[in-house]
């Protein structure tokens, strides 16, 4: 039966830790599952390589060299900020603008010279536009940019 020495185990754990760092934002159960499968994969690869003798650091290094580097596990994954991607934040800003505008107009009824509602609206649309452009490649990024532009144009047309 194959045994793995402590230094070799430490190498494996470092690799898995580095992969885990690339999975930031992934739900924990999915992350745990993936890491467990990778650990199993490494052990299988080591067994295929060493057979019955003990696995040592050079064996682990050879197996890991044949696998994807930890950075590869980040590929194609969108970074999340407080649970949402950049594009989703952009869309949220874009759509919250009109809602906040209506709420503030209701609150500021009678105070016709108060520009707060309009300023809040334009701020949310500007934020949405900037975030949307930054995340243009994301599905929600494009939607946010177009929504912001459309809402801004509508508000300009409706302004007395």
């Amino acid at each position, binding site marked *: *039966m194959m045994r793995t020495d402590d230094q070799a185990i430490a190498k494996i754990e470092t690799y898995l830790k580095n992969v885990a760092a690339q999975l930031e934002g992934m739900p924990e159960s999915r992350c745990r599952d993936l890491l467990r499968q990778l650990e199993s994969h490494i*052990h299988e690869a080591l067994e295929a390589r060493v057979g019955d003798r003990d696995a040592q650091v050079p064996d682990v290094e050879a197996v890991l060299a044949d696998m994807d580097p930890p950075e*590869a596990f980040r590929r194609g994954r969108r970074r999340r900020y407080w649970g949402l991607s950049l594009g989703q934040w952009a869309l949220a800003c874009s759509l919250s603008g009109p809602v906040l505008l209506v709420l503030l107009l209701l609150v500021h009824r009678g105070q016709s010279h108060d520009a707060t509602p309009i300023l809040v609206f334009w701020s949310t649309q500007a934020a949405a536009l900037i975030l949307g452009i930054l995340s243009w490649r994301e599905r929600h990024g494009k939607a946010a940019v177009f929504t912001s532009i459309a809402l801004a144009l509508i508000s300009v047309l409706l302004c007395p």
Partner: protein
Amino acid sequence: MKSWVTQLRKGLLEYCVLSAIAHGETYGYALVQRLKGVEPLALTESTVYPILNRLREDGCVKVRDVPSGNGPPRRYFSLTSLGRNRVTEMNAYWDELCEAIAGIRRNDDGSKNDEDR
């Protein structure tokens, strides 16, 4: 060309993984080694394992963990009935697509394109 190949591979990932499992229950390492051996696909651990997890969440693949004497349990993957249906549909679409593309290459009148002569 590189961009086209990348997009094509992305579109085929799920089909290839499901097709590989369709032959019978298999475990992660064996599956990855099988797919890695297909050079044009360029499939590796960082693409196969996340897809397997997603297919499992979608209900196309089921898992069975078998304790191993040394190291973590070995996870076996097999298709569910939903997965088998999906592969069948994918196979039918793939055959149709290949036939259609072959028709385009043949120019539909039986004469081959310049590149195929």
